[in-house]
């Protein structure tokens, strides 16, 4: 009996001690905590330094996706209208964020490291249609020294269907 009572009083002492410690709450919309290094947030489609898109429209990510969240439609590149260094590029690229489970398999499947799960996590929508992120929303801005796509390039430079990563040709 006395044991019980002393335990109960000990419990109350703990809650009282917590009451006078400052709260750990972060006031979220005003103060945002940086995410961890390996955090898997919303996807981004990356670009090379010269502004070309890394994605070559191979749809391997769509094949790897366990939630069937990705839709890719590829088109041919030409030297006058060039989006990516490869043979083809993704003319349509959509991810349904309501289906995506943020597993990162798309990242692993991509041969060109075009798709990366980055640190954005504020994904809330008013309707289902706005949960579908299109290519315009996913692709990153052109780097400072790069050119906007589509680019006009000299013929015979980009000849590989899957470009070499370091120095795309």
């Amino acid at each position, binding site marked *: 009996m006395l044991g019980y009572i002393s335990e109960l009083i000990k419990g109350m002492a703990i809650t009282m001690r*917590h009451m006078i410690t400052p709260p750990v709450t972060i006031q979220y919309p005003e103060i945002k905590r940086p995410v961890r290094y390996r955090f898997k947030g919303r996807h981004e489609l990356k670009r090379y330094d010269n502004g070309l898109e890394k994605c070559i429209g191979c749809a391997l990510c769509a094949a790897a996706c366990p939630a069937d969240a990705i839709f890719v439609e590829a088109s041919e590149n030409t030297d006058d209208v060039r989006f990516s260094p490869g043979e083809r590029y993704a003319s349509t690229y959509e991810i349904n964020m309501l289906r995506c489970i943020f597993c990162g398999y798309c990242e692993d499947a991509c041969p060109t490291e075009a798709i990366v799960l980055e640190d954005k996590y504020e994904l809330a929508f008013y309707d289902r249609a706005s949960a579908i992120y299109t290519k315009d929303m996913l692709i990153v801005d052109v780097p400072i020294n790069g050119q906007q796509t589509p680019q006009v390039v000299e013929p015979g430079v980009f000849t590989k269907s899957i470009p070499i990563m370091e120095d795309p040709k």
Partner: protein
Amino acid sequence: MENAGAVALAALAVGGIIAFVVITGFAYSTLLERKVLARMQVRVGPNRAGYIPIPRRGKDDLRLLGGVMQPLADAVKLFMKEDFTPPYVDTWVYNIAPIITVFPAVFSLAVIPWAPLPQWLADMTPHYLAPHGYLAIAPGLNVALLFILAITSIEVYGVVLAGWSSNSKYAVLGAIRSTAQMISYELSLGLTLLIPVMIAGSLNLNDIVVSQQQNGWFIMLQPIAGILFFVGALAELQRAPFDLLEAEQELSSGYNVEYAGMRFAMFMMAEYVKMIIFSAMWAVLFLGGYAGPLVSQFPMLGAVYMILKIVAGLFLMIWIRASWPRLRYDQLMDFGWKFMLPISVLNVIVTGVMIVLAEEGVFDGMLGWFGLLGG
């Protein structure tokens, strides 16, 4: 009674003011509960509604009094909710059950003594408050304690009817368990209430307060009764650790599952007003009521002490809720019948014997609280 009209008017005014204060208090006791619970869990609690921004250089605004408007926001939200009546409910009973639950809780406010009567109020109410000399809505009710016990028992009907009329098995089971709990603990609660009555020799709450001014607070004379009353009140209110009937985490709240919007808010209101009433009763019966330093000079200070004591009682309830795990149903019944009841019965018998012996003068000249009992 030639002054019946004036008395009724004055009673309406005093009752209206006190009811308004207590119902505002109900709204803010929900805020108190949320804030204190949050702080005990090292959180902040509601802090968005109605803060006062104080600009600071180089930093975000300091937010003062965050959450003061939270009860208002809650009320607006509850009023805006769809007033949904589930199909197959017994509509009439379903609609009246929240009222039956809330009405006795508010009604028992009538007899709580708030302060000694100040002179100006006595002059204003020569036939109503003045003859009794203390501030309450219904002063001079010589069976005040019985009145509270009787009135709060009516609440059980509200619970049963709510559960039954909802036409849902969960609500019925919740209602039956609530009722069983309330009835079992009412027994030892009633017996514990006898102790202050025996010592003070009156069922009038003001007489009990006055008697404590002579004898010392009854929690000093009768710590066991004080604790038993508080535990019984927790069980009667179905608060932690006796809140397994509305265990938010594992059951969906018991007899009031089928209620929404304002009707649900009425059950909540009954619960919180009852918390205030039981805190007030604890203050009156065991903590000296409105007594405190300087009350004889400034009578309205009594109301302040009363409110402070009520808030202390509420805080203790919330503190317990934050600290202790919940009882199982069989433990609850065991505790009520096999522990609380025998101790309260014994306590009544021993206290009775002590009082008789003290009156016979057995303890004359002895130190300690036995001597105090004789008065």
